[in-house]
C-alpha cells in the first residue's frame, strides 16, 4: 500500500541501505513527533527550492517570448536541485536555440527590407508630365523572395520594364536577385541595344556565380513617343499583350535565362504598341498558386482571367488579377512569390518637343 515508486534506483557501486518497513516507520513517527515535524520541514524546503526554480523558468519563458531574454540569466541558476540538472541543461539549449533563431529571423527581415528597397514603387513622370499608366505588385511567399521587377526611364523617352524570377529561395536567391537587378540597370544605361545590354548583364552574372544560380527575365524597352517596343524573353513565362479591339498576343521565350552561359546570345523582337494596348508581365507564382485542395491555378485559367479583365487602367488590372488568384488560393499558404506588372500605352501623354 502507498504511493507507487516514482523512480527506479539501481546500485552503481556497492550500496548499503537501511530498510525500514512502512508500518515500523509510521509507528516511529507517531511515537516521535519531532521526526514527523522534521519530515514536514524537509518536504517544505524541497517545495520552496523547487518552486523557486519553477518560478525562475516561468519568468525566463516569458522573457523569451517577449524578446527580453539574456542568456547570462541562466548562469545564475546552475542546477539548484540535482533533480533539475538535466532540465536546466535542456532549458538552456532550448533558450540558446530560440535566441539564435530570432537573430536569424531578424537578419532575414533586414535582408528582405534591403531587397524590397530595390523594387521601385513611385509612378514615372517623363519630364514631369502625367504619370505613365504603370503598376507593379509583388507578394513574397516568405520573408525573402526570388521574384523581381523593375521600371525606369532612359533619357526621359524610353521606358524600361523588367520582370524576373531567381532560382532558389531565401537569402542566396535574394542576393543573386539584387545582383541581377543591379547588373541590368547598369547595362541598360550603358549599352546601345537591348540584346547587348542583356548579354553584358549575363556575362557579369556568370562570372560571379559560384552558387550556379540563374534568373529568368523578361525585358521591354518602349519608346513612349512612337510606341516602338523592343522585347526579350529569357526563359520567363510569356507576358500578355492585350490590344482593345484586336486579338491578344503572347511573347514567348527566345533566349536562355541569365547566369547560365558565358557569352550567350540574346534574341530580341520588335513590336508596335498602340494607344490603349496593355502589356502584362507575371511570374509563375500566379500560375503555380495552389488552393487548399492542392489544385493548381494553371496557365490556362490565368489566360482566361487575363482576357476577361478590362485593360483600361494598369493598377485596377493588376489588383483584380492578383486578387482573383489569391482568392483561389484562399487559406492555402503561399508557395511562391507572386509578381505582376502592367503597362498601358498612351502616346499622347508625352508632349512632343517643339
Amino acid at each position, binding site marked *: 500500500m502507498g504511493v507507487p515508486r516514482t523512480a527506479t534506483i539501481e*546500485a*552503481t*557501486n556497492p550500496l548499503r541501505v537501511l530498510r525500514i518497513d512502512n508500518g515500523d516507520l509510521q509507528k516511529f513517527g507517531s511515537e516521535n513527533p*519531532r521526526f514527523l515535524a522534521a519530515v514536514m520541514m524537509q518536504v517544505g524546503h524541497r517545495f520552496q527550492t523547487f518552486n523557486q526554480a519553477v518560478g525562475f523558468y516561468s519568468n525566463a519563458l516569458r522573457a523569451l517570448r517577449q524578446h527580453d531574454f539574456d542568456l547570462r540569466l541562466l548562469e545564475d541558476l546552475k542546477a539548484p536541485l540535482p533533480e533539475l540538472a538535466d532540465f536546466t541543461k535542456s532549458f538552456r539549449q532550448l533558450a540558446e536555440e530560440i535566441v539564435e533563431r530570432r537573430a536569424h529571423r531578424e537578419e532575414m527581415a533586414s535582408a528582405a527590407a534591403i531587397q524590397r528597397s530595390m523594387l521601385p514603387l513611385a509612378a514615372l513622370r517623363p519630364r514631369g508630365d502625367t504619370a505613365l499608366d504603370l503598376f507593379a505588385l509583388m507578394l513574397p511567399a516568405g520573408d525573402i523572395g526570388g521574384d523581381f521587377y523593375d521600371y525606369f526611364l532612359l533619357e526621359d523617352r524610353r521606358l524600361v520594364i523588367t520582370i524576373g524570377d531567381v532560382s532558389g529561395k531565401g537569402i542566396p536567391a535574394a542576393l543573386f536577385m539584387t545582383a541581377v537587378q543591379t547588373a541590368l540597370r547598369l547595362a541598360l544605361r550603358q549599352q546601345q541595344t537591348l540584346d547587348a545590354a542583356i548579354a553584358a548583364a549575363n556575362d557579369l552574372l556568370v562570372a560571379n556565380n559560384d552558387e550556379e544560380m540563374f534568373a529568368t527575365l523578361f525585358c521591354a524597352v518602349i519608346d513612349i513617343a512612337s510606341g516602338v517596343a523592343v522585347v526579350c524573353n529569357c526563359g520567363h513565362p510569356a507576358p500578355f499583350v492585350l490590344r482593345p479591339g484586336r486579338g491578344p498576343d503572347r511573347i514567348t521565350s527566345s533566349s536562355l535565362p541569365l547566369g547560365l552561359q558565358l557569352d550567350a546570345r540574346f534574341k530580341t523582337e520588335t513590336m508596335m504598341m498602340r494607344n490603349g494596348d496593355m502589356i502584362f508581365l507575371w511570374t509563375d507564382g500566379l500560375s503555380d498558386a495552389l488552393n487548399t485542395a492542392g489544385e493548381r491555378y494553371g496557365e490556362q485559367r490565368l489566360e482566361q482571367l487575363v482576357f476577361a479583365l478590362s485593360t483600361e487602367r494598369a493598377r485596377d488590372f493588376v489588383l483584380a488579377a492578383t486578387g482573383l488568384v489569391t482568392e483561389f488560393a484562399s487559406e492555402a499558404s503561399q508557395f511562391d512569390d507572386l509578381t505582376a506588372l502592367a503597362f498601358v500605352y498612351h502616346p499622347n501623354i508625352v508632349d512632343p518637343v517643339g
Partner: protein
Amino acid sequence: MTKKNTAYTHLQFDIPASDIAAILHSHPLFAETDLAALTELLGRARLLTLHPGEVLLRQGEASDAAYIVIEGSASVRIETTMAG
C-alpha cells in the same frame, strides 16, 4: 508484498547499531530525534547490501518501506511518456 531477492545480503548489523544510529542522527530528518529512539527503530530495520547493477526498487512498484543509504551510490531513473 516483499519480493524475495537473493541478491540482498542480510548482514544484520555487522556495523554496530549505535554507529548506524549516529549516522542517522546526522541527517536533518533524524537530527531532532533522540538517539535511544533511533536505536530502537533500528532494531526493526534491515541492512541490505547491493552489488552494482542490482535494482533496489522499481518505478511503479508499491512502496512498502523507506530506504536510507548508509554507504555507496545509486542511479535514479525515471521513465516518462514522450510528449506527442
